[in-house]
């Protein structure tokens, strides 16, 4: 599969850049887009000026404002971001329909076969970047490679307004120097484990045997083994093929307290809402996933008649599903929330209800 051409496009400080574009007074200033400290809000995005102060997304807004007192806090206006995202997607579609959006500001494109008949993916990436700037006055960074894993790392290599190409010939050298935390599938917990096994970068990962990795990481072992060798066959999956949308998180410490579990779940529900919103999707089946400390994994689902998108509604259902688990009794290491079965119950259109009271 090494003859694929994959581009990863990542908008630069997307929400913050949109705000700076629309409000000249914000240009050149540290801008934080997020909830207010009073709402116990978090940073959804921040401008490059703000990043210099150590501010990053997912940080509590209160902390961010402590780090940089002159920062301007802007409440997110998703309609604006969605509009810009729509314009960007129109540009993508000029080249290919094989688009896998990760969020409003990030997407994979498979341009192996493209509408423009251009052989060079680098050329396409360059054109896309230019067109994005022409149309939206926003900059994007692009990564070009033969697989998703390397394309994504490449787009983050030089930011903002970067374009990085990782050819199959350069891939192994490129991977050797990558910090282990940037590998797809290595979260905080796995990173810690990698460190404890003496693996800090791609080279140190590559010298480990498949047996060794499988022994320590189970099924993921083979995945890491392949990544270290630049092998990633995962396809670009366009939205039309998407069956579900969800978020999950492995937590650095195992959780037992119900309050904490509920807080985490609420956050996941709102993240799922954000994803659903960005694709304009609503779903009828809500699934809660829990992995306990002993790695036993369970899922609990409910299907409802009316498709939902709102995080609050999803959270309400998740809480009911939570009753049917050992949460609070048995330590939990991973929580996940997903929504599938998109669209309203198809057979209920126009069906009248009995006036039951």
């Amino acid at each position, binding site marked *: 599969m090494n003859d694929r051409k994959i581009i990863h496009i990542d908008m630069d400080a997307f929400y913050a850049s949109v705000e700076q574009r629309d409000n000249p007074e914000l240009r050149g200033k540290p801008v934080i887009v997020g909830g207010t400290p009073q709402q116990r809000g978090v940073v959804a995005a921040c401008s490059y000026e703000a990043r210099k102060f150590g501010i990053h997304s997912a940080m509590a807004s209160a902390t961010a404002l402590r780090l940089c007192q002159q920062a301007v806090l802007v409440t997110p206006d998703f309609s604006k971001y969605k509009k810009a995202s729509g314009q960007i997607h129109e540009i993508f579609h000029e080249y290919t329909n094989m688009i896998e959006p990760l969020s409003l500001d990030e997407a994979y494109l498979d341009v192996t076969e493209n509408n423009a008949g251009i052989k060079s993916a680098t050329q396409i990436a360059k054109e896309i970047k230019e067109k994005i700037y022409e149309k939206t006055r926003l900059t994007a960074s692009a990564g070009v490679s033969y697989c998703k894993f390397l394309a994504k790392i490449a787009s983050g290599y030089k930011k903002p307004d970067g374009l990085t190409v990782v050819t199959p010939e350069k891939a192994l050298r490129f991977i050797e120097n990558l910090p282990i935390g940037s590998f797809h599938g290595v979260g905080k917990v796995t990173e810690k484990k990698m460190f404890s096994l003496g693996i800090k970068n791609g080279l140190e990962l590559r010298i480990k045997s498949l047996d060794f990795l499988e022994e320590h990481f189970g099924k993921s072992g083979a995945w890491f083994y392949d990544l270290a060798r630049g092998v990633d066959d995962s396809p670009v999956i366009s939205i039309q093929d998407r069956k579900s949308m969800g978020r999950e998180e492995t937590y650095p410490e195992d959780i037992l307290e119900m309050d904490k579990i509920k807080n985490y779940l609420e956050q996941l529900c709102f993240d799922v809402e954000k994803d659903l919103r960005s694709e304009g999707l609503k779903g009828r089946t809500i699934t809660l996933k829990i992995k306990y400390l002993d790695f036993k994994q369970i899922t609990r689902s409910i299907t409802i008649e009316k498709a939902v998108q709102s995080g609050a509604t999803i959270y309400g259902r998740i809480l009911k599903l939570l009753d049917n688990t050992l949460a609070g009794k048995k330590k939990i290491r991973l929580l996940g929330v997903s929504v599938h079965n998109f669209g309203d119950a*198809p057979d209920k259109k126009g069906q*009248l209800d*009995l006036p039951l009271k």
Partner: protein
Amino acid sequence: MKLITKKNEILDSLQVAQFFISTGSTLPLLSNILFDAQDDFLFLSATDMDISVKIKCRVEKVEQAGKTTIPKKIIPLIKEFTDDIIKIETDKNDNTKVVCKKASYKINGLPAEDFPVLQLDEKKLESITIPQKLLKEIISKIYYAALKDTTKRNLNGVYFKFEGKIIEAVATDAHRLAYYKTEVKTGVKSKFDYIIPLKTINEIVKVLSDDETKEITLNFYDKVIEFQMENMDIVSRIIDENYPNYNQVIPKEFNMEASVNKEEFAAAIRRASTITSDKSKIVIIKFEKNKLMIIAQAQDEGEAFEEIDIKYDSEPVEVSYNAAYIMDVLKVIESDTIEIKLISSMNPGIIKGKGNDDFLYIVMPIRK
């Protein structure tokens, strides 16, 4: 525990017990079946904590009384044995040895002491004993109309009301409602009403007998209901919510009444529904003087037209329904002729068997 049995003495009971084992439980114990052997009987119990079953079966010989819990994989194992003597023996660590001829299996179980039971310790309020066949008839006539999901918890079950000698039962998913009313010989002194979870109903209907002479006793408690049969005892939690006022949605006066041959109508609806798309099974039913027409259309797929002779003398009317809702009720009506009664194309309509007032089906149309 140590016993000798034949395959056919316990296999059916084990398979019934299997219905009640919870799926996807986090408690390993709930995936097991409780074996309790005493006096040449084996009692099998299974539960998912909402419903539990205890089945009594006679075995060849109990050599040593005792209890244990065995994972459900013993069922396919026993099923595959030839019909010879099977020896089941459990050691003190709850590991069970199953021996049949020269085959020998060991299955690791869990202690019986921790096996959960649905408590019946509250005071029994009252009981009623009725033929199993009647209960089966009531349930079969209505339970398909209950809500299949839990979006409205109180509708995810079948409602029963016992008052004197009268039993009323209702199931609805808010789009259609099935109602059954009957009188029994010996009733209850006071009044009881329960919403029995659909899951329980689905299991009960499987075990009820068609034999006229077999009876079932319903024991009423505050939060649970117990179904006692000759060799089986089922305890179920009830849905502790209010059931909607169904009487209020059953229309009493109508503007149109039709008398229709059930078989002709059912066949025509079944044919027409093949043209509707899977997602919306909409059929338009037109009533004109002494004739009924069924029209269905599916975009890009085709059209259906059916006409049957009926007895109808009211104003012409046209009303759309979900064909599945109509087919459901036509399957359970036994009369040759059905009556359809309507108020308008936007109001609830009634379908019932002619000459049978025990059973009513109320269905809401689809807006045009």
